[in-house]
């Protein structure tokens, strides 16, 4: 499921396997994606190439920042996305 045409991640509405090929409609255009990893139900995968430090977008809004390069069809979760909020760990470093 893609919630907004600005999104660079989509949510899997069923369990998806690495190698699955998906045809996705984003607004007017169609995107073909070959998944590079398993994506469990309700989890996310990438709709675009992202350099490290890129905004990750869902609901048309920024939900975090990529911590490494993300390829089209990559599984997107806590291993490659960081939150910008509630980061007491970063506040400590800044002291």
């Amino acid at each position, binding site marked *: 499921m893609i919630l907004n045409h600005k999104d660079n991640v989509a949510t899997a509405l069923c369990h998806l396997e690495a190698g699955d090929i998906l045809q996705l409609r984003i607004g007017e255009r169609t995107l073909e994606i070959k998944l590079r990893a398993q994506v469990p139900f309700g989890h996310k995968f990438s709709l675009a190439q992202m350099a490290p430090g890129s905004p990750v977008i869902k609901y048309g809004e920024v939900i975090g920042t990529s911590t490494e390069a993300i390829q089209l069809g990559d599984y*997107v979760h*806590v291993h490659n996305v960081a939150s*910008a909020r509630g980061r007491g760990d970063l506040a400590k470093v800044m002291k």
Partner: protein
Amino acid sequence: MSFQGYRRQNGSVGTRNYVGIISTVSCANDVTWWISQEVEGSVPFVHGQGCAQTRPDLDQVTRTLISLGWNPNLAGVLIVSLGCESVLADQIAAGIAKSGKPVEMVVIQKVGGAKTAVARGSSLAQAMVAKTSTLRREEFADSELVLGVKCGASDTTSGLAANPAAGATCDLLIDNGGTCIFGETTEFIGAEHILVRRAATHQVAEKIMNVVARTEKRAIAMGFDMRGGQPTTGNIAGGLTTIEEKSLGAIVKGGSRPIQEVYEYGERPQGKGLFIVDTPGREPEFLTALAAAGAQVIVFTTGLGAPQGFPFIPVIKVTANPATYERLPDHLDMLVNLTGHTDFAETGRTLYQEIVEVASGKQTKAEILNYGNFPNIFTIGPVI
């Protein structure tokens, strides 16, 4: 649309007709519980606060206990006090009595200990039940409904379908002249810019920004990444990656109407429409905040399956995760279709119908199970 409710002396309307046995302090919890077990038609409110705390927290506990006593689902209240606690039982009883409902009190240290307190408290509660149980349901317009909205044990399906459905229901109720209350300020973090656009006034917008900043500051002060605590371990297993993602999915449960005011924990909103109560989203504390705010029915969306109800508020459990709905039939009241739709008007109407039926007396799964007897009151400072 209309529902069948109980008329209270102060003009509010209950959807249930219980006598509340309210503990003033954690030390009075056992007696409170025993009395509630003795007396059919009574419900307990036990919690972990009320003593050895700083003034702001003692005031917050006092305010919350008074507001709980005002909840229209309670026909009368028995206060159970230990006797030496920091909060003042007399002040709480007097505060509740202003609502016009009968209030009685038993003080454990005065009456000679737990056994005597249970005996005396049970007699007082029995007499109140005998009197208040003669009240019959009457028809009221749905504009009298005060709906609390909460999400818990969320996964990505919560933000995709269950919360938008709850939001559509809130919009319907507000358009019909009713009231909705939401909160869970931690889950505004990363989505506050959207809520601010819906503030009825500039002052309300400022309050929203302030409560979010205050909540985030408390989390940051601990010196760790909030992730794992928020989003929770279960949220992450359910596919939620960051607090921003969780928040963007969470705020839609409050619908799309203007936000009229932001209230402190334990306060009772005045007037009708959509309100925020500033409190973290953890179940024991937040359900209490909704009850204190005067909610007579709560809609609780969940992804992974949160079981909590509340002692005197019917809590309707809604999920959009079909596996959860199948796995936890004892806990879940309603399944929302997840199949990629974006128009929740129809689902909102179905949920609205369910709310009206529950308000009129239909039992929710949490009520049938009698699950949710251990709520708490949110406090800020240390135990001292």
